[in-house]
């Protein structure tokens, strides 16, 4: 475990062509890390995430992504992800290959990855057409009952990236509130980058808290506000207005590019991003 700046962490651990999982279910989405990946211009990434959300819409729109493994690709509570749709429907700015599953299958596949199993099974996709369009959904039989179950390959990202409340100086990481599949995504990954709101001497967490010990973490980067426009329970709220504004920002290719230029590329880091958004609002 090393304490690094986010720039250093992305530069050191995220390479072109890799498979990344950036998780956070509505809560604790690691936006700052995604913006830094855009700034550093990574290409040909395979991205996995249950809900691509705005975070992957941005990476897809910037042409960083060649393949995506996912289960629900909308703008939550708002509508479509226009950059995702443009990539799928019109291949702009580049075609994107989809490995499309369900939430239950994604979650189980992260668990399998974290567990050193080659695949996950679930009583899933019953009567669904998804197995007919995705060769990564197969079936097995229970060796005791003969019951037919769905199977999907384990998810084992090269790099798992999550945002958390706190790390301590040693690099132990604490998550609170809705923890989603972050622990699984992190533990399924070869390298783990964690952005945190703050670094403290001691976590001082209640027993049975959700903690990643320092020795499963590759790098911790302190990035206050690093989940914006997502939220950090007890620290700041979800920027629901931004999620709604994104519909208009992202609907148009040029508008999207201009926004990324102004708020991501032209801001050196996440503090700059927050400052520019703040100046506008």
């Amino acid at each position, binding site marked *: 475990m090393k304490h690094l700046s986010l720039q250093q962490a992305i530069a050191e651990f995220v390479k072109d062509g890799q498979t990344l999982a950036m998780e956070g*279910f*509505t*809560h604790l989405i690691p936006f700052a890390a995604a913006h830094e990946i855009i700034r550093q211009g990574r290409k040909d990434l395979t991205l996995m995430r*249950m*809900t691509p959300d705005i975070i992957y819409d941005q990476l897809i729109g910037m042409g960083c992504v060649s393949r995506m493994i*996912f*289960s*629900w*690709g*909308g703008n*939550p*509570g708002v509508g*479509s*992800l226009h950059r995702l*749709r443009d990539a*799928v*429907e019109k291949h702009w700015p580049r075609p994107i290959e989809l490995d*499309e*599953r*369900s*939430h*239950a299958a994604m*979650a*189980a596949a*992260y*668990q399998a990855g974290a567990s050193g199993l080659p695949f996950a099974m*679930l*009583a*899933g996709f*019953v*009567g*669904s*057409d*998804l197995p007919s*369009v995705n060769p990564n959904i197969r079936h097995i039989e229970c060796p005791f009952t003969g*019951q*037919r179950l769905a199977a999907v390959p384990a998810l084992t990202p090269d790099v798992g990236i999550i945002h958390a409340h706190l790390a301590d100086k040693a690099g132990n990481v604490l998550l609170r*509130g*809705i*923890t*989603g*599949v972050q*622990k699984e995504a992190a533990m399924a990954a070869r390298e783990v980058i964690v952005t945190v709101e703050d670094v403290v001497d001691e976590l001082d967490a209640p027993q049975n808290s*959700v903690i990643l010990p320092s020795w499963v973490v590759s790098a911790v980067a302190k990035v*206050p*506000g690093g989940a*914006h426009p997502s*939220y*950090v*329970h*007890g620290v*700041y*709220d*979800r*920027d*629901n207005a*931004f*999620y709604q504004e994104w519909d208009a920002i992202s609907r148009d290719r040029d508008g999207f590019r201009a926004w990324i230029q102004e708020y991501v590329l032209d801001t050196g880091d996440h503090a700059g991003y*927050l400052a520019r958004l703040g100046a506008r*609002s």
Partner: protein
Amino acid sequence: MSTPDYTRDEMMTIAASRLMWNGCVCFVGIGLPSAAANLARLTHAPGIVLIYESGTIGTKPSVLPLSIGDEDLAETAECLVAIPEIFTYWLQAGRVDVGFLGAAQIDRFGNLNTTAIGDYHAPKVRLPGAGGAPEIAAHAKETFIMLRQSPRSFVDKMDFITSAGYIGDTEARRKAGARGDGPQKIITDLGVLQPDPQSGELTLTGLFQGISVEDVKAATGWPLAVAESLERIPPPGEEELHTLRQLHARTAEAHKRARKLPY
């Protein structure tokens, strides 16, 4: 149709909320289902157990969540669990009484499409995808579907089955390995449809005030079966309407708060 002093969405929400019962374990999505389930909780079913797929179990939000993982859901939950657990120990294990689903399209057997219009590999419209729906549709003891009715949404031939209803008939559903009983109530903005117990074909069983069978037939993309005795669903009661409007007002108020950036 006359113009009543409530909207179709209000009627639809209230009709759905009436179908919930006290103690019902309900797997809820955002939007109309969330409004219906919370309305039930605030009126006749205070002991309803709401589960959102974010891992929030037994939650009692003060306003309607905008996202499925709102802080309010976590704050008011009986317990929080990780997402893999929600889909295994809770949904797949058969602990959910009612799974609430929406869709872009539904067919006469209650199959749902939330994936793509047109060819999957070259879609005319790419929809958000499956989310939790295929397994909710399979494992909840029954599913309720809320969907505004029109020939574009109630289609004769569906491009893609994301989540199974009765597939081709109730026997096909059983053979495919579904455990739950499938779509038992389809609540639209015109009335309520229920499956024929034998064939699974959706049948109009209830009409909202001011809606005729012809209205519903015109909004359906296949020749709609109609039950012999049609229920005329009562209009919103005063308390229902008042509670729902207050809930929406509180929600609007909460979500209107000025953007406060972190730091």
